[in-house]
């Protein structure tokens, strides 16, 4: 890739630039800052669309009372129950149980705090879904 061919598309970098190695006019490698490449935007959007769709599906399940709000925050943080278990120090078995609304509703403050901490939220935020108004 030549320096003048380094793509400068507004992409996933939100105004930041990444370092690309490219050839200058003399044929020497130099670092050229790139605003991004259309290709990156397309595949990044594909990945984020998948996350958004999954999140919306989980949100509807929470609203329908099929899973607890824990499932929602877990999905927001791109975790599965295994990673959440690792991040809270709780067993995988317990985390899976806590995904059931009835079990989740009875959790102690101490356990809720561990979840809240893993998500970077407060305990009050943990019980809520965005857009539910409390």
């Amino acid at each position, binding site marked *: *890739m030549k320096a003048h061919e380094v793509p400068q598309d507004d992409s996933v970098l939100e105004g930041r630039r990444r*370092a*690309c190695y490219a050839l200058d006019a003399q044929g020497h*490698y130099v670092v050229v800052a790139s605003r991004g490449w259309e*290709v*990156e935007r397309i*595949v990044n959007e594909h*990945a984020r669309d*998948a996350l958004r769709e999954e999140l919306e599906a989980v949100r509807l399940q929470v609203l329908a009372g099929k899973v607890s709000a824990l499932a929602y925050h877990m999905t927001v943080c791109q975790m599965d129950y295994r990673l959440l278990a690792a991040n809270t120090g709780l067993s995988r078995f317990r985390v899976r149980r806590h995904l059931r609304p009835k079990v989740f509703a009875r959790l102690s403050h101490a356990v809720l705090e561990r979840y809240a901490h893993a998500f970077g939220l407060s305990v009050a935020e943990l019980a809520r879904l965005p857009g539910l108004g409390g």
Partner: protein
Amino acid sequence: MSAPRAFPHRHSGHCETGTLGALLRDRGLDLSEPLWFGVGSGLFFLHTGLLKVGGLPVTAYRVAPLAIVRAATRRLGIRMRYERFRDAETATRRLEELLSQGLAVGLQTCVYWLPYFPSTMRFQFNGHNLVAFARDDAGYWLSDTVFEEVVHCAPEALVRARFARGAFAPRGLLYYPESIPDDPDIEDAIRAGIRSTCRQMLDIPLLPVGVRGIRALGRDIGRWPARLGVDRARAQVAQIVRMQEEIGTGGAGFRFLFAAFLAEAGLRLVLPALQDLSREMTAIGDEWRQFALVGAHICKGTRTDADAYGELAAFLAQLAGREERLFRALRAAI
């Protein structure tokens, strides 16, 4: 707001070679990023459909986190110290102690918790490397070399990023050079790095690693639409292209880095043949970009024909052949 001390930050193509280069530059050994990448044998490829993670076949464009740091420092005779921690308080205390002595330290972190990352690029990935070089009342000063300038980061966010769990969990890992030889044998390290890269790309038995991995992906990819259905096939193509181009750890970016290394190695070892191989590696990198472009068209839905996957497969078969010839010639040249 400005940092309490100057740090020789340099915008880099890959976080690990950028971090390693910055740590050593701060201590007086100033080598280029391509040199660290080549001496540390950063080029790699693995693809196997037999092993699956999260339902997806495993494709890796890079070596494991810190493999470059370990290999490059070993070959240059630099002694590194690595410290991992059981709890965040001890890890934070140790970091502050080192910073207060004026040392800069490398940290392994999880991208998801770093607030200065663009929101679109915050994914759960534990292998991101950066340098912490100063502390002030509000937080840490970081040289995250994939960004153009140094950044400032709140303490809680950094703790979270250092103690994220899961695959490649950093467990608070920090590292720094303990001793640096006065006159490291760079030429010898270059030869060792090249030999080891050639081994990685050509010789690993039994596993689909290196050029055989590229071939394995080529054979697989053509069958994806029939075997997995259109949606899954597209998702897997998106994942492949993201790993090589968006996340910036493989594909064309790494080929250009290696091409730059070959050019520099050719000058240092006085081997003009390496200049030709550098040009060929650049051409190979350009072809990886063409591959990514076709992949992006598939994701976007602007290419829905079955031929598109055949085209990806053909790209990979050709790339594998070209890389195989290049590494054989490279091995013969040194």
